[in-house]
């Protein structure tokens, strides 16, 4: 059984089905899950709420990373200013303490925001596996509609007991207007 599945997943990326509305897409996702398909991804022109949950994707932990990024930024900001003003280049300005932390706050804040923003953007891009100019789904000509008004469900080949023909018939039965088997 495992041999057969691995054979399939070495030839096929999966089967992709096109839908015209987000409701049809969510319906198809739910039916496919009932059928036992596990590895799936859905594609849409804009974020569809509830889609990620329906697909059974675990929510990302991006926000934790952003918080850590911000914290590192703040510590960097304070560390930089403390080291330079107290240790590397102590300079007496009107008798103020070298560690005049109150006047360090603006730069601490700016660096916290900067690091958090970098974490958010590069975390999002990196965890999404982008930039990736080539992907099997791009082989489907009609996939261009994904940025216009079409919704796609792709059941991937490493998804349980995958049989490309059966899966195609199943997705056609869900009211998809177009189904295509994608090779790797």
């Amino acid at each position, binding site marked *: 059984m495992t041999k057969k599945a691995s054979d399939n997943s070495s030839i096929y990326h999966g089967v992709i089905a096109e839908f015209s509305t987000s409701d049809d897409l969510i319906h198809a996702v739910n039916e496919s899950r009932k059928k036992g398909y596990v590895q799936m991804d859905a594609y849409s022109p804009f974020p569809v709420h509830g889609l*990620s949950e329906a*697909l059974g994707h675990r929510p990302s932990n991006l926000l934790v990373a952003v918080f850590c990024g911000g914290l590192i930024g703040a510590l960097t900001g304070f560390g930089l200013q403390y080291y330079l003003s107290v240790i590397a280049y102590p300079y007496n300005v009107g008798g103020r303490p070298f560690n005049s932390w109150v006047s360090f706050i603006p730069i601490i804040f700016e660096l916290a925001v900067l690091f958090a*923003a970098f974490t958010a953007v590069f*975390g999002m891009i990196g965890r999404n596996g982008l930039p990736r100019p080539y992907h099997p789904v791009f082989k489907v000509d009609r996939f261009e509609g994904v940025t216009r008004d079409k919704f796609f469900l792709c059941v991937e080949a490493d998804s349980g007991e995958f049989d490309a023909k059966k899966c195609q018939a199943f997705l056609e039965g869900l009211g998809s207007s177009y189904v295509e088997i994608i090779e790797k």
Partner: protein
Amino acid sequence: MNPRPKRKTVDPSVRDAAEIYDDRSSYADVADRISGLVLSPTRRGWIIGFIGAVAMLALLKYSLYRLFNDGIGIWGINVPVGWGFAIINFVWWVGIGHAGTFISAILLLLHQKWRTSINRFAEAMTLFAVACAGLFPLLHVGRPDRAYWLFPYPNTMDIWPQFRSPLLWDVFAVSTYATVSFLFWFVGLIPDLACMRDRAKNQVVKTIYAVISLGWRGSARHWERYEKAYKVLAGLAAPLVISVHTIVGFDFAVSVIPGWHATIFPPYFVAGAIFSGFAMVVTLSIPIRKIYRLEGYITDKHMDNMAKVMLVTGMIVTYGYAMEAFMGWYSASQYEGFMIWNRMTGPYAPFYWALIACNAIIPQLLWSPKLRKNMLVLFIISLVVNTGMWLERFIIVVTSLHRDYLPSSWGMYTPTVWDWTTYIGSIGLFLFLTLMFIRIMPIIAISELQHLAHERKHNRIDHDQESIR
């Protein structure tokens, strides 16, 4: 199966949005229309604007050539007014650069859905305004080739920047702001660049969009992270916007010059920044929506809302002027009192009263709903406000410096022709970048508009079902 649909609460801002967007347009219409603006032949209005912008840009280049060749002595700055046009223009441009992120971030967090059709364009405007702003301190340091000395880096001179100075805070604030604004703008653009890639017919154009869209394919997993990243960026950008102009306000307020040393400066600078930023968005969006016939997306309701924001922030700024005058008297400080009296009746008094007329009196016309709907009037008011905000910075910088504590060090400031050409040239740079952006990028957020249409459709279905029950 339970046939009764769950009762959903309808977000009132989504309902309001219904009157902002053309209800009949489908997802495909939005995608085709906005991408079509870029993929169709160049419009005549654009070409005319571009020729003007390039001419002004040439003026900037020549002015910079003269500046680098002869030094900043060609400007009118001297003791006691060492902060002339360079700082006035810096503050003016940074202020204009506040509306984009305000519209994008703060209005997003406040669920103001109407922002969707102007945010992309306002963000781009922000970036270009900040670029123009950044130019001026670099020129003003006199040795632009050594501008990197502003940053803390290990060097053979074994010296480090002074972290207790607001001027250094400014370096960090403006560079962080420029970076985060760029990231915010770019993240918003990614799905729309993918849309451009899929719509483009020309293979070269398609490849360029494919590369800069990072191969976006609209995967559900990607959208989930994308939305989180976008929201958190908005959350980060919102206090950042406030902090940047606060710190620009500190540049003045932390000094001990009468006319600068005032606690009201940071909030009043932030309000002034949003005031001038919205004025600039209005100035640019009126011709753009006319040339590209975008009245269905950037509607009269948008212009009306922006006019209201201008009215409110204009009155906050007016409160600032009143407080400056009041504190001149109430502080009982001889120097503060002289400063405000000198502003009102001294050699620069006409500029002061012009500023009051532009920022405090003329914007009061915006109380009238009829005038807010008249695009010609609104356009003129937005230009008046931009002028007024420039005069405000002129008054703050010049009148505070030209009368020092000791009459022996009093002087006058007169800008030279090179001050003017550099200033006009920077407007050329701004227009050039804006027009380039309009030509090659989707100026309205496609996927966000589609998302809004989707939300609205679903809410309406819920409504219908509720009424059937």
